[in-house]
């Protein structure tokens, strides 16, 4: 009972090594690229979308195009081979998490993924356990934001989150969904 709650099982806070040393800190913090530039499906699909290699090269055929760090990207691209990114956030196969609905209802990236702008290698900040999901599903107001702040990192609510969240909750018609088929089908 204790054991399953430890990071050893949940995989929480374990920086994952990627085939390419992609640094979110740099891209998000320094360059200020919006999450949705790469993870472009997040508003439409279940999946946030791991960007196609071509997406990287939109910029990198101009800048740093000869950087050795990008060697793999280029070779893979021209060989038409995918880059084998390593999954960081894994949900069991029987869980149907849908990014689009969460984003559209005002749940920010940060709420689940944390300060990605401060992560050299991305790691899980949450246990991703069902009870963790339920915490938010039972009182969503604690995590709601206005649409323009969805991808913001380190966003602070104008008013105390509780009441601000409650306002947004009524505004977006956010429900407290805890029935099974919401996630398991």
């Amino acid at each position, binding site marked *: *009972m204790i054991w*399953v*709650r430890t990071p050893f099982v949940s995989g929480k806070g374990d920086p994952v090594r990627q085939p390419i040393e992609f640094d979110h800190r740099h891209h998000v913090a320094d360059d200020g690229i919006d999450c949705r530039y790469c993870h472009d499906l997040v508003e439409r699909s279940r999946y946030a979308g791991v960007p196609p290699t071509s997406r990287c090269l939109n910029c990198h055929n101009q800048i740093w195009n000869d950087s050795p760090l990008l060697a793999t990207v280029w070779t893979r691209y021209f060989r038409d081979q995918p880059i084998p990114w390593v999954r960081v956030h894994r949900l069991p196969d029987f869980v149907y998490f849908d990014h689009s609905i969460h984003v559209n209802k005002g749940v920010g990236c940060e709420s689940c993924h944390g300060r990605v702008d401060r992560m050299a290698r991305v790691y899980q900040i949450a*246990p991703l*356990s*069902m*009870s963790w999901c*339920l915490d938010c599903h039972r009182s969503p107001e604690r995590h709601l934001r206005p649409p323009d702040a969805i991808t913001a990192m380190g966003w602070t609510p104008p008013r105390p989150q509780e009441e601000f969240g409650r306002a947004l909750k009524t505004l977006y018609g956010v429900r407290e969904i805890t029935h099974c088929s919401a996630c398991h089908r």
Partner: protein
Amino acid sequence: MTSSPAHRIDTPIVLDTDDDDAQLTDRLLAPLRSKSKVWYALLALSGAGMLLFVATSVYTFVGGIGLWGNNIPVAWAFAITDFVWWIGIGHAGTFISAFLLLLQQDWRASVNRIAEAMTLIAVFNAALFPVLHLGRPWFAYWLLPYPATMAVWPQFKSALPWDFAAILTYFTVSFLFWYTGLVPDFATVRDRAGSRGRRMIYGIFALGWRGSAEHWQHYRIVYGLLAGLATPLVISVHSVVSMDFAITQLPGWHSTIFPPYFVAGALFSGFAMVLTLLLPVRRVFHLEEIVTARHIDAIAKMLLAMSWMLIYSYVCELFIAWYTGDPYERYIFLQARPLGPWAWLYWAMISANVLAPQLLWWRSVRLSPLALFALSLVIQFGMWMERFIIIAGSLSRDFLPSSWADYRPTWVDLGLLFGSIGLFLFAFLLFLRFVPFIPIAEMKELRREIRGTA
């Protein structure tokens, strides 16, 4: 042979021996030293059965429930039948020792420990089946209310968690009751032990008992209390088991008389099992003077009484089925069972549970160990069939004829049933060999009461 005390019913006393305490003690401890060939032979035989059980269980665990004959609609069949059957057998033990203790039935003394051991083993046996029966047994612990990371709990409207609690409690309480009774006798074994090793081991089990008057006083109280607690348990356990069926809507299950009906059935098969075990033991270890004809006679009479409780339940069921006018009820009770594909099983069950016990009206039958032994086996088989007819039979003919289907057991089903019998006997034989199976202290106390304080 007829002159031997074993066949005299008119013996005034339960305990038919002139030994003094020491001799009596030695006689009762004899089995623990005996090198009986029969015992070894039986142990080997039942050991094989136990291995069969292990094999079939592992096979099921690895291969899945599909290896059984179950289907939709008959999703429960052999395994659950075995479960109910064993639980039922596990009833007489506590009933005899607790209930009869409260009623101050002297004669219980010499048989109660065997009965209790039987109960413990049978209940343990039974408890294995529901787990094995799960589609995903490795998640059996989900029936326990523990704080899981998925934040989901067991569902207590279902009868299965009730079952779980009932069996757990029944096993624990029966064990405590049994062990408490054993402590003074373990002390005796400790003090009569030849080798140092035995003295050590039994010494530990005896908890350092030295028969102090003050201890005896507390002991009497607690033993009585445990008896008092165990008695409602005997009633509650099989009542709860019966609710697995009674709370459903299925014709043939959905019935309010199930709790008493099942308890009666349980005691019926339980007493039969007591006889099945007691008669050979008595013969093999020459205990005719401890377990006298009067014991046997008393148990036989109990059997007869129980059979009539059962008959009453049967009649009740049939009458109600007819009286409700509910087409589904009527079909299952008045057509499917007596005339359906399993009619032969039904009538075999009737003759085993209703007709056969009536032989016990004859004194000669009650006094013939052989006849009783045979009868006890017949009755147990009959009770197994009864459960099978209730469980699989009802499922195979429910509301929509389109989904009716019959059921065929596979060799795995049979292996589990016979294997569990092997397991049961194996454990019981070990008990006979290493535990004083006739309460020594109680015997002596009892004799003192009978003879008066001279």
